[in-house]
């Protein structure tokens, strides 16, 4: 099945290429280049960020051997992380509002496709590539029990394509390009999910595919309507022209379509039904990767469209997006947390908790003030770390116990103390205990709520955190205070345990040293709120 998505995604990418080459075929190409000169590779980092994983995917297919394919994927993933860290450093060095712009094919924006990196997407890029690298390190050991070894190379190809898509959505400054990359990442994600052990994996992947495609098509519809009004697809250009057009009905319908479409991808509360199944039945490492990146990138797209393209006046004053998103966010926080408490499977419980955490992020967006948005963006980072770490812990359990059901975890705290210790650390962060990363993001959200003069909202954030205590405690109780099953358990393999600990110690680190996350996120938030006309 993996093959299908891979083929599919390759085709899509080819399509993207044609869009690029044909679209401007008629246009005049003015720039004449100077004669041969030494290539300055660091100038081309934005293109390499996408091109390297994209080209590594077919190479994985050619290599075919599981080990080799993994080695290449690991190398490329780490390389992509290095590139994104460099880009982030460079963007931050540019100071407030600085951005790196890269013109694909040498075509000037707004005609050509532009890769535009500012504080916001450099931040998201680091998350995507970073999580991808750490999860990739844990992959071979965990995948062995879930997929026949001769099909591993296809897994790595699909994984790299998914990462390409997610990074592409983030880096691009072209609205239609977002759609193309979204579909690349989604198609490969469907295939990755369908590789799960049980037959439910395929039905979940199908369900996700149907919903995801509707979401993607709505996004396409919205972008089409915007193009109709403004005649441009470049995001920076779009925002300028939209400000001149103002709020006519087409623009509002476009905003509605985009918000609806992205909300499906984001799994915002009433549109989340695909998420618990997909996360539960996917291979453990796939869940760890997707939970930390796919919904986060969708959140980024929502933020980008609402603030950068439409701008606060249009989105909030004209269309009252907050009146829609605030209640949904609160429903997600409470509803999903409540459902999480009653889950019999811990992996499924964490999936529901993801829906709740997405609620917090959307809450930050809906507040539309600096603290709130900072909180949302910091939570994006922190939640990626902790969920990815927690799902890697689940990978350990799945490998050693053969199950992640709550009753099978009885006494596991004594039998696998290191692994379960990681779970507790992640759980504390999920609750938002002070000194952990979860606390930082909730602190900013509460501050944002208070600044907006909505103190009941601040109370809601605290109350819903109590629900997180409930579902985490259930697991802790079973794992520590129930009689363990007899029989010896081997320690979880280090190749999964170490990445899990790295991520979860990361939540501890970023709980104490907030300058990186909060600094970048608040710079991004100021950019988003101040950059709008």
């Amino acid at each position, binding site marked *: 099945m993996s093959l299908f998505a891979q083929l599919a995604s390759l085709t899509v990418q*080819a399509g993207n290429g*044609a869009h690029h080459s044909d679209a401007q075929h008629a246009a005049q190409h003015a720039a004449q*280049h100077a004669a*041969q000169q030494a290539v300055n590779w660091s100038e081309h980092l934005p293109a390499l960020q996408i091109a390297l994983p994209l080209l590594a995917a077919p190479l994985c297919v*050619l290599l075919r051997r599981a080990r080799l394919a993994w080695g290449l994927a690991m190398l490329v993933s780490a390389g992509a992380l290095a590139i994104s860290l460099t880009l982030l450093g460079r963007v931050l060095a540019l100071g407030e509002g600085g951005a790196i712009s890269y013109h694909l094919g040498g075509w000037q924006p707004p005609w050509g496709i532009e890769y535009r990196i500012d504080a916001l997407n450099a931040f998201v890029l680091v998350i995507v590539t970073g999580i991808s690298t750490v999860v990739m390190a844990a992959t071979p050991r965990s995948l062995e029990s879930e997929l026949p070894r001769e099909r591993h190379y296809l897994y790595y190809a699909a994984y790299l394509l998914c990462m390409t898509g997610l990074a592409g959505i983030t880096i691009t400054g072209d609205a239609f390009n977002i759609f193309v990359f979204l579909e690349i990442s989604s198609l490969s994600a469907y295939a990755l999910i369908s590789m799960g052990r049980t037959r439910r994996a395929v039905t979940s992947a199908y369900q996700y595919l149907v919903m995801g495609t509707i979401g993607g098509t709505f996004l396409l519809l919205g972008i089409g309507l915007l193009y109709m009004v403004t005649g441009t697809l470049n995001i920076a250009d779009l925002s300028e022209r939209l400000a001149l057009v103002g709020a006519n009905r087409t623009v509002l319908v476009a905003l509605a379509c985009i918000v609806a479409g992205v909300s499906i991808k984001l799994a915002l509360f009433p549109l989340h039904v695909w998420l618990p199944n997909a996360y539960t039945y996917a291979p453990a490492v796939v869940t760890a990767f997707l939970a930390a990146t796919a919904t986060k990138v969708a959140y980024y797209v929502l933020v980008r469209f609402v603030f950068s393209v439409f701008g606060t006046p249009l989105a909030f004053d004209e269309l009252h997006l907050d009146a829609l998103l605030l209640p949904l966010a609160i429903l997600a926080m409470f509803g999903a947390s409540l459902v999480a408490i009653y889950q019999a499977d811990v992996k499924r419980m964490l999936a529901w908790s993801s829906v709740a955490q997405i609620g917090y992020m959307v809450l930050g967006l809906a507040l539309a003030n600096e603290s709130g948005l900072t909180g949302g963006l910091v939570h994006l980072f922190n939640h990626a770390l902790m969920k990815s770490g927690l799902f890697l812990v689940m990978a350990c359990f799945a490998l050693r116990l053969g199950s992640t059901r709550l009753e099978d975890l009885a006494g596991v705290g004594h039998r696998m103390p290191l692994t379960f210790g990681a779970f507790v650390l992640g759980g504390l962060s999920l609750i938002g205990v002070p000194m952990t990363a979860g606390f930082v993001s909730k602190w900013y959200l509460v501050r944002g709520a208070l600044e907006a003069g909505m103190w009941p909202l601040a109370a809601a954030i605290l109350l819903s955190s109590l629900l997180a205590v409930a579902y985490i405690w259930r697991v802790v109780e079973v794992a520590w205070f129930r009689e363990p099953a007899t029989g010896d358990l081997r320690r979880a393999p280090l190749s999964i345990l170490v990445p899990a600990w790295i991520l979860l110690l990361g939540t501890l680190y970023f709980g104490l040293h907030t300058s990186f996350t909060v600094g970048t996120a608040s710079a991004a938030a100021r950019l988003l709120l101040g950059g709008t006309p």
Partner: protein
Amino acid sequence: MIRHVILRIVAKTLIPCILLFAFYVQFHGDFGPGGGFQAGVIFAAGIILFALMFGLPAARRVCSPRALEILISLGVLLYGGVGLASIFKGGNFLDYSVLAHDAVHGQHIGIFLVELGVGLTVTAVMIKLFFLFAGRKHIL
């Protein structure tokens, strides 16, 4: 199907035409409507017609599954390779103008190679899809 004389003769005359037309669409894509996509699909249609007529095993001998996999990868690599080559030549990613001594020729070469990559991948993907679906034991 091989026993039906009319079908067999018609297919035998049609398949070369279809394949030839695919090449026309592929290589004429630089000057007029056409290009890798359309050509790839048309070419694949020729092979699929062959498979329908003479059976899957015969078609598999023409293009083995592994060969298709390699073709798919090569198409993408060719596409990306052009992008990297243009960086080597001092331009931006996928800037075809720098590929030759002047911009017009560069654009020409670039588009030609990229479309070739697209055509390879699309052809192989389409045939592979057909093989995979047709090769399942119990189809709906």
